[in-house]
């Protein structure tokens, strides 16, 4: 496996640290004019999502982690695994377990495209697009004509996600939701 020396350190690099795949978030180069150079690095452990801070002497190196991100379409779940298919035309399928899917499970809609992080060829995490469009399957009755008023109520979406929506939203409507904040954005015009 390839390795990266401190001169190659930069944000986005995928490396192995203490046996775990990590992504480099920040790389701070420090060096007193005539002195020894150091790299102070922030990394996110892709297994635990914890952020680590480590210091390296100039010239030290880290092993590269076989981590790649690929776009895949969500197909279905069999209860144990969630199945995805590459969108590159190869039809190659990957099965992600509950740990890899994590909280993204509440944004998974069949035929939508997600970013799958593969570690040594196996799904490590599933990242939803920033916005998803999902149908309301349950909410208190709507109050027509109350569009300008404030106030909100919970609505359950087709995936099971519960978001806070304005009072006028009714069952059957399709909503655009920001997956980063879990917040309602707007109604999507239904056909």
């Amino acid at each position, binding site marked *: 496996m390839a390795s990266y020396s401190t001169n190659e350190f930069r944000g986005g690099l995928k490396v192995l640290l203490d046996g775990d795949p990590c992504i480099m978030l920040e790389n701070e180069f420090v*060096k*007193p*004019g005539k*002195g*020894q150079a150091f790299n102070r690095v922030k990394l996110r452990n892709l297994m635990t999502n914890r952020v680590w801070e480590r*210091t390296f*002497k100039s010239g030290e190196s880290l092993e590269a982690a076989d981590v790649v991100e690929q776009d895949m379409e969500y197909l279905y779940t069999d209860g144990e695994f969630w199945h995805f298919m590459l969108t590159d035309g190869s039809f190659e399928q990957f099965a992600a377990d509950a740990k890899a899917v994590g909280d993204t499970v509440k944004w998974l809609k069949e035929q939508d495209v997600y970013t799958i992080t593969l570690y040594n060829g196996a799904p490590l995490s599933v990242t939803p697009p920033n916005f998803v469009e999902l149908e309301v399957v349950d909410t208190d009755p709507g109050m027509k004509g109350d569009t300008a008023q404030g106030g909100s109520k919970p609505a359950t979406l087709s995936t099971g996600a519960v978001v806070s929506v304005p009072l006028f939203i009714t069952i059957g409507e399709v909503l655009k939701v920001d997956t980063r904040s879990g917040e309602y954005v707007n109604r999507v015009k239904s056909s």
Partner: protein
Amino acid sequence: MSASPVWHPAASRQVLENRAQLLGYVRGFFSERQVLEVETPVLGRHGVTDVNLDGVPAAVDAAGVQGGWLQTSPEYHMKRLLAAGSGSIFQVARVFRNGERGRRHNPEFSMLEWYRIGFDDRQLMAEVADLVCGYLGCSVPVSLSYREAVMSVAGIDPMTIPDEELKQYCEQWLEPEQLAGLGRDGCLDLVMSFVVEPELGRQEPVFLTRYPASQAALARTSEDAGFEVAHRFELYINGLELCNGYWELTDPDEQRKRFQADNRLRRASGKPEMVVDQAFLSALDEGLPACSGVALGLDRLLMLKVGTADIQDVLAFPLERA
């Protein structure tokens, strides 16, 4: 990654003007003091032996000269001019240091280097203060010895702390196996970079002086309060290291010893040994007049002027865009 390269400059139009104005200020400053502006090669046949400075190798092929190095500083060439009787000189030079890139570093940068015949380190520090504070409008720098600075900020005595204790102290940043390959000065550099430097020059500009003799580089040394110290100084403003100056070593034998010691260190740390610049040593043999010299990072001075913490804001095209 195949992101298309950015063609736009990183520095704003305003900062380009600031840079032009700074160059004008520097030239006016030295013209008034009758210091001669010179130019020396950016591409030289030799690199430096300093274990912590990596030059950028060149691939020149002309007149029987092959290889060569982009210079890490114009020091050797300028000292040859001094030995040849140039009198006091200054230069705005482009210099190159491999591997150095960060918020305060770009592998290519602008260095203002000058030498004053007959000055000692104190006199040159006063001139640096005039130049810098005349430009930034800051208060006159205070002086602090390396030992005082490390003791007051880090709480350890850099001159007396046993190696083992120093290593233990450094374990807050490095694993024991990483520390195994780091010498005493390397450990002190760690303490300096991570603990002391950020605090230097916060209230007012600070000259750090009287470095441990092991960090003398090309400075004279003498005894101070029972410790061998170097006549070397650095100016810090807001935690930013601005310059590095010496009361220059003029003894060619001592210089030869330091070159050899550098190459021993290089060997020990697995770096290639550097061919010693014999022309520079010959100039010293001929006689370098007593002088002090200093190198000041112009990009960093500009950073302080425009109030940015990122060198990229003052460079038209930092490495990634160059």
